């Protein structure tokens, strides 16, 4: 989730914009029916197709034999949204390609042969699509995709057939949540064919007031139509969140009290669980966005959002730790990172 986390479009509400394309080769069964030998071949075919494509692009990419990666490294990638939890726990032969700036990640043999993902900060679905589409075109020169004129790109799960595309935005909606208007928004968007998920996708709980909005339908709508729809809806949600933030500012002292209390705990606690940390981070982020809490940049908040997750925390501190030690180290990391900042 790097790639220049500066002031990106709507970055006070939208954390990231992601495009994911599901693709399969017509020469091999889907991963559900692959034997180990075939699975190795699929990994090789796509590894070559990607790494031997356009040089200016492929020199930015690294290939990993994910079968040989340890589980802590995989969990770190999950926490950064670069691979799915399902992919991390797969025992079968898989491969993984990542760009140096972590905007492009390609999973080989996840549910489909290929899952191409591009992730950009702020509201930038069009840019994300341009990059993803370009990669798809490069791979398509080397591989015959499973495609039918009638149904489009054929995928392992019928929910992805057609464009094979999932466009999603991750948004931070603390004011709508605090003011109790969130359910109205969620009801409205789900009626428009939008899926709402938590921070870590399917089945994950809502933490830190973070929500992922993505398209439900992949058949019968073009990629551009889907992107426009999600962008329009995201803009409406941003608008509502900003109105709610303004209303909260009407009771400024109460809001300041809440945000500074959270900031006080966040910057002074000695033991912090990951869910308490996410809740506090949400308040601190809101405080920074509203210019109530000064001296911390959104970049630091974004960095801490990943760095305080269990796997990344363990990697920073050199290896496996039990949850209690993690909670102590998490608080320590935040205090170190925030030392000297604040109002």
């Amino acid at each position: 989730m790097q790639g220049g986390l500066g002031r990106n479009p709507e970055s006070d509400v939208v954390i990231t914009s992601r495009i994911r394309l599901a693709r399969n080769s017509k020469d091999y069964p889907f991963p559900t029916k692959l034997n180990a030998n075939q699975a190795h071949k699929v990994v090789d075919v796509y590894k070559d197709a990607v790494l031997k494509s356009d040089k200016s692009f492929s020199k930015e990419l690294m290939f990993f034999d994910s079968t040989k990666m340890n589980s802590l490294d995989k969990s770190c990638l999950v926490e950064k949204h670069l691979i799915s939890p399902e992919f991390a726990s797969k025992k079968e032969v898989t491969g993984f390609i990542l760009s140096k700036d972590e905007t492009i990640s390609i999973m080989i043999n996840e549910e489909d042969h290929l899952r191409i993902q591009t992730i950009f900060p702020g509201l930038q679905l069009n840019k994300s699509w341009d990059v993803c589409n370009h990669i798809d075109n490069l791979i398509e020169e080397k591989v015959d995709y499973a495609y039918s004129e009638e149904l489009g790109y054929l995928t392992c799960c019928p929910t992805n057939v057609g464009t094979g595309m999932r466009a999603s935005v991750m948004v931070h909606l603390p004011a709508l949540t605090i003011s109790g208007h969130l359910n109205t928004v969620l009801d409205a968007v789900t009626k428009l064919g939008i899926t709402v998920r938590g921070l870590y996708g399917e089945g994950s709980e809502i933490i830190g007031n973070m929500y992922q909005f993505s398209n439900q339908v992949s058949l019968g709508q073009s990629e551009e139509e889907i992107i426009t729809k999600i962008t329009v809806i995201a803009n409406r949600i941003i608008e509502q969140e900003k109105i709610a933030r303004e209303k909260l500012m009407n009771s400024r002292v109460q809001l300041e009290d809440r945000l500074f209390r959270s900031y006080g705990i966040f910057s002074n606690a000695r033991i912090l669980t990951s869910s308490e940390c996410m809740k506090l981070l949400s308040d601190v982020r809101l405080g920074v966005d509203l210019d109530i809490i000064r001296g911390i940049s959104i970049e630091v908040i974004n960095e801490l959002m990943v760095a305080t997750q269990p796997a990344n925390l363990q990697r920073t501190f050199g290896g496996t730790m039990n949850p209690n030690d993690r909670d102590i180290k998490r608080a320590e990391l935040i205090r170190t990172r925030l030392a000297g900042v604040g109002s």
Partner: protein
Amino acid sequence: MICQQCMQRPANVQITQLVNNQKTVLYLCESCAGAREKLLIDLPFNMSNLLSSIMENMHGVTQVPIKGEDMQCDVCGMSYDEFTHSGKFGCWNCYNSFSQRLDPIFRRLHGNTKHTGKVPTKVDSERKTAKEIYNLRLMLKDAVKVEKYEEAARIRDKIKALEEEQKRMGGVQ
């Protein structure tokens, strides 16, 4: 320590659970722990369960083919029964093998049965080639009709070349 769920009351219950072979420990207050127990009982629900239940509901129990009549994909060997249980296809040809059953599923999931998005460049150029061949055949017919045999021969060679190109690219459905 405060409860990890409500973040308000003090945590006085420790819950250890195994999810995907990973041990997690939760520290909750009594009331959240009680609610969680209830939650765990009616939780076994996931996307593939949901999909297979959509499919089963659409076909109704009585429509499930009796043994021996179950459709099967002749490329990967997946049976229709297997597909309805897992919610996942085995290969691209499953879409052909089960085609007569799939439209209602697509309609239910997407509200549509026809792709209108991106066309792979290869397929796109194949389409163009097919159209060009069709046009050239019409021209050939006209040329023969007006006895322009030299031109007819030229057109015929062009068609032949395009057809060979088509064969070379071949395979894309």
